[in-house]
């Protein structure tokens, strides 16, 4: 019988540890699929960060290294400078990238470091049990904003894609989500474009994924997808913020 579908070879056989309904799994799979489709799996070197995906070095089938909290773009810089011909990417959450690691991501982008940064924004700290993230929405209840995020006390969400798009070294910046088939296809295109930007040595490429956290949002998986549509997308609009006309 002809094989019509099989699991991507870009992932190992290690079972994911993610919570039911969490979209990290989808994002892992489509990054892995793109690496296989582009035939770059054997050249790729990924950097895991700190948070729910701390051990995704066990999941991606390419060479992987685990970095200290927030420092993945610096670690990726070191790798890329040693192996300029390899495809280097980071996989970071919102606490890692938008809080403790702002300096590293901003300067990797400003240097035009020829890497891809995949940023998974679920508006909450997942691994440490639901604290407020820099990307937590106004009014959103978390374990450290139990009365809802109050701008007067806790400031405003950070729109990383819009911010990084202002930097000259960032040549491609897009925000996507993975809430349905169509958005997943768009997310795959964004991943592929980010890797092509790196292949052509054009500069820093950034893809932000709006992702669910049913456990810490206190919602079931379906409601979580709806919550992205209704609450996250108005704050974090989807689209290309830099490099729309870039032909790669």
């Amino acid at each position, binding site marked *: 019988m002809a094989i019509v579908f099989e699991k991507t070879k870009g992932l190992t056989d290690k079972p994911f540890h993610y919570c039911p309904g969490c979209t990290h799994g989808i994002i892992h799979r489509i990054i892995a699929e793109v690496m296989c489709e582009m035939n770059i799996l054997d050249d790729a070197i990924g950097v*895991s960060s700190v948070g729910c995906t701390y051990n995704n070095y066990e999941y991606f089938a390419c060479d*992987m290294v685990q*970095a*200290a909290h927030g*420092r993945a773009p610096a670690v990726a*810089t*070191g*790798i890329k400078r*040693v192996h300029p011909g390899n495809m280097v990417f980071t996989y970071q959450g919102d606490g890692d990238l938008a809080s403790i690691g702002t300096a590293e991501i901003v300067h990797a982008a400003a240097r035009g470091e020829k890497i891809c940064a995949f940023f998974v924004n679920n508006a909450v700290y997942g691994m440490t049990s639901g604290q407020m993230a820099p990307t937590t929405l106004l009014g959103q209840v978390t374990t450290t904003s139990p009365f809802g995020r109050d701008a007067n006390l806790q400031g405003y969400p950070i729109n990383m894609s819009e911010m990084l798009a202002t930097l000259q070294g960032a040549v491609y910046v897009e925000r996507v989500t993975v809430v349905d088939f169509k958005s997943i296809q768009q997310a795959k295109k964004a991943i592929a474009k980010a890797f092509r930007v790196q292949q052509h040595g054009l500069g820093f490429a950034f893809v932000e994924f709006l992702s669910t956290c049913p456990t810490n949002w206190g919602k079931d998986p379906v409601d979580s997808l709806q919550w992205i549509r209704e609450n996250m997308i108005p704050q974090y609009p989807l689209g290309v913020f830099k490099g729309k006309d870039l032909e790669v």
Partner: protein
Amino acid sequence: MSKRVLMKGNEVIAEAAIRAGCRYYFGYPITPQTEIMHYMALTMNKAGGTFVQAESEVAAINMVYGASAAGGRVLTSSSSPGISLKQEGFSYIAGAELPAVVVNIVRGGPGLGGILPAQGDYFQATKGGGHGDYRNIVIAPASIQELYEMTVEAFNLADKYRMLVMILGDGTLGQMMEPVSFREKEPIVIPEKPWALTGRKDREEHNTIQSIYINPDDLEAKNIELQDKYKVVSRDEVRYEELNTEGAEIIIVAFGTCSRICRNVIRQASGIGIKVGMIRPITLWPFPTEVIAAAAAKPETRAFLDVELNAGQMVEDVRLAVNGKKPVHFYGRMGGNLPGQQELLDQIIKIHEEGK
């Protein structure tokens, strides 16, 4: 050895690193070590390597982590406040067993302190500073020639043991000029690195590098493995210099710049009939415990004098080595000040008189 050239300590470190095959440098400016960066910025690209001025010391050490994980020979340098920032990275490098060389041209602290020479980072360098049970090899050269030779050696040791090697200098060593003779060919030993991240290529399995072991048995096993490695380093890599210790009544223990002053005091003391010797640790970790213990056991040794540019840090290791067999005195200066020869000679005379 080739013709002697007059060079500044910081520049010699950079030159030695390039000669040792280091092709990646990541750093952030801080006095009094910045000439290392300047030299690297000028020469690294020509040597076929990469120089990156990082956005912070934190970023720099993590670039080192990445470059080392990728199989590169890599250096970063800083001075005390900047080294504090790198400590997190040191711990990760230890946990992931990556080779790296770090230079600390120590200045006075705590806090922003000053920019003049000090040895107040001894504890931080030798006892940790980052979290967890780990060790770094710490080398404290005392001359520009030794700075050159030990920097080359540091890279070999880092690769041999897959661990971090720190060159612990001070503002004087970094800033002063002395003649140095470079070898025609450096004794470079770079082992195969099958663990390095290169892209999977033809390998069956992907390589992964990490310092996390969630299962307690796995983490304990990793720690035991690290401790076993550190035992081998402690056994095989202790370096020190003994000067005039045969028949000495007082034995000075001092390292780095401080030992240079002590060296002159030994001559002066001899002139007034006091036999003084010196044990100069070259590796601060592993520490030359056995040689100090052996000196303490000699009947003619009456006392030790530990001299440092701090409030008394290495003296704790000296006391552990002496183990109560003989009195251990301490004399230190802080804030970037150095002791004068007469100042030290007065200490020697005092100890000599007390011992009568």
